């Protein structure tokens, strides 16, 4: 005969009392585990959502970056094409050349060495592209009896320090001629037609569409042939170039750079309308970049809002747990204590006789506290098992996001090892709760006067 035997026999005899105590403890343990699981799942779900959102935002920004880069490349091409259509917009002229002559007559008189073009190309000039040495002269086409602008070009001089770019203007081969719109419409020229110019025969290789500029009355021929016709061997009137997409006062930068390479020259800018368009495109690029920055800010704001929303939800669940847990634990403790008290009341006679038989205070305490501890162990373990299920169900009910449904016990455990501690500690806590709650009743039992009970009969 042992106290353990006595405890087990009493439990099997008064099952309801024990079952109710186990249930009370199990509910308390369930509440602890479920609350902890919900709160820890919340944290993990929040982490996953933030990672997902962050990744989505970064992907969106990445896309935007690519789009802006692509827009930049398109812009560059567009400008290049625009320039090609409108012509070169930077002219390097001899310092002595009166620019008014160009504007008034579409013709130049002062010359400079053709080698200047190569000198520029060999330098590390950054502010201009596509160097085109030319001769340019307004003159009479005696064979056709009309005034034209003769334009001698040999093709672009490649810049040595840059990647080769597709030329803006194709070179005109010797013996060939490109004809402006006003001329070929007036004279009814066709491609492939042979014409005489200054006693030399040329084959028309291309007819330009209308440009609304002096190009419409221009003939393009090979530079060497033009120099020969004009008696300007190894000399040119101008070096045409395309400006780069420089920020700030571009022409001042170009002048500063070229004056360092080619002293005795001047630089003028043409086609301000085209430049305005280019600037507009540049502005558009800036707008796109600003849009990218705004996108980044919006992404960050979205993340911050999501985080705030999740934090509110987590705080809400935490507050609910903070309210419900103490309440449940208190009610469970009261229930266990009450059941223990009723058990003591019910067993007064038994306690009296056990005391009469010689059981000591400690032994009577053990009889009641042992039973309480056992209800704590069983209720604690059952509560943990049920709490896991309840936590999962509650978590899904409280948080219906897709991410939340993917976070189960295993994921929560991996993400938050503290949950493991909760699962392990809860049965221990349940035993402590049950034992402490029954302590008063056990003390009452142990201090019960056997004589009073036995006299009561």
């Amino acid at each position: 005969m042992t106290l353990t035997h006595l405890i087990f026999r009493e439990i099997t005899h008064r099952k309801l009392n024990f079952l109710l105590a186990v249930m009370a403890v199990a509910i308390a343990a369930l509440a602890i585990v479920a609350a902890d699981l919900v709160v820890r799942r919340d944290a993990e779900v929040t982490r996953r959502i933030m990672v997902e959102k962050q990744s989505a935002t970064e992907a969106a920004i990445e896309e935007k970056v690519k789009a802006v880069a692509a827009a930049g490349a398109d812009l560059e091409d567009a400008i290049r094409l625009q320039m090609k259509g409108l012509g070169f917009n930077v002219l390097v002229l001899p310092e002595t050349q009166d620019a008014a002559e160009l504007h008034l007559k579409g013709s130049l008189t002062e010359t400079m060495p053709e080698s200047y073009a190569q000198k520029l190309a060999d330098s590390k000039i950054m502010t201009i592209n596509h160097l085109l040495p030319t001769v340019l002269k307004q003159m009479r086409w005696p064979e056709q009896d009309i005034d034209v602008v003769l334009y001698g070009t040999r093709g672009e001089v490649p810049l040595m320090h840059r990647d080769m770019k597709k030329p803006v203007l194709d070179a005109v081969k010797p013996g060939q001629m490109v004809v402006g719109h006003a001329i070929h419409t007036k004279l009814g020229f066709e491609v492939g037609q042979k014409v005489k110019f200054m006693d030399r025969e040329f084959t028309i290789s291309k007819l330009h569409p209308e440009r609304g500029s002096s190009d419409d009355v221009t003939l393009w021929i090979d530079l060497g042939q033009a120099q020969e016709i004009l008696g300007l061997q190894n000399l040119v009137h101008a070096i045409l170039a395309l400006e780069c997409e420089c920020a700030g006062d571009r022409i001042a930068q170009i002048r500063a750079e070229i004056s360092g390479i080619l002293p005795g020259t001047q630089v003028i800018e043409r086609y301000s309308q085209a430049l305005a368009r280019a600037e507009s495109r540049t502005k558009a690029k800036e707008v796109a970049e600003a849009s990218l920055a705004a996108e980044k800010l919006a992404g960050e704001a979205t993340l911050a809002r999501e985080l705030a929303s999740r934090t509110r939800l987590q705080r809400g669940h935490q507050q609910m747990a903070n309210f419900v847990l103490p309440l449940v634990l208190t009610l469970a403790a009261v229930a266990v204590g009450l059941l223990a008290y009723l058990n003591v009341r019910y067993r007064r006679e038994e306690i009296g006789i056990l005391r009469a038989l010689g059981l000591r205070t400690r032994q009577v305490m053990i009889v009641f506290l042992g039973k309480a501890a056992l209800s704590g162990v069983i209720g604690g373990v059952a509560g943990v098992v049920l709490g896991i299920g309840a936590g999962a169900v509650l978590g899904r009910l409280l948080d219906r996001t897709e991410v939340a449904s993917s976070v189960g016990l295993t994921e929560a455990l991996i993400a938050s090892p503290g949950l493991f501690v909760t699962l392990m500690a809860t049965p221990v806590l349940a035993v402590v709760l049950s034992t402490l709650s029954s302590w008063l009743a056990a003390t009452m039992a142990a201090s019960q006067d056997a004589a009073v009970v036995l006299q009561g009969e």
Partner: protein
Amino acid sequence: MWFKLEQVSKTYLGGDAPVPALREVSLQIDAGMFLAIRGPSGCGKSTLLLTAGTLLAPDQGDVVLGGERPYQMSGDARATFRGRHLGFVFQQFHLVPYLSVLDNVLAPTLALADTPAAIDPRVARDRGLELLDRFGLADRAGHTPARLSSGERQRCALARALLNQPRMLLADEPTGNLDSENAEIVLAAMRDFVTSGGAVLLVTHDDRAAAAADATLWMNRGVLTQPETVQAK
């Protein structure tokens, strides 16, 4: 004398007025004595039994058992002393309802657990089965008290009282709920206990029970009216 009460008084407080239950009671019982105490209800018989049984401390006077003064011991030491040296039999049996007959009989061994007087579980079990056999309950060892007759319950209670081989039995109306056959069995067992060197203090209204005793004392309003020292028959 193994058991002595000297000038013991006990008064119950808490009611409308104090109720004196024992008035300077002196009594001595030696081993091998069977003493019955009779008297009207409320005369203090049960109080005397509980005081003798170390369950109810007197207000004054001295209680000595085997040379020890149990009321000068701590509660737990007195409980162990009680479990070791005294056996109780009550009119209402006071069996533990959820324990089997054998477990009820073995319950007193709990009192001696973790003490120098602890009984080996196998020895206790053998002794318990032997007692059940002696009282005709061998085939009832596994039953709960609810399945026993009154006589069987009292025999079970008597077996329980004898398990730790006490020096004295304290019996409060042990035959009060029994038929004559069972009453005879119980009284015969008590006589056997006395014959084997134990002492019995019996409180009863029952003439048959009193007749089984070596001597009968009368009690009235807390006062014993017969000679204080009782000799064995």
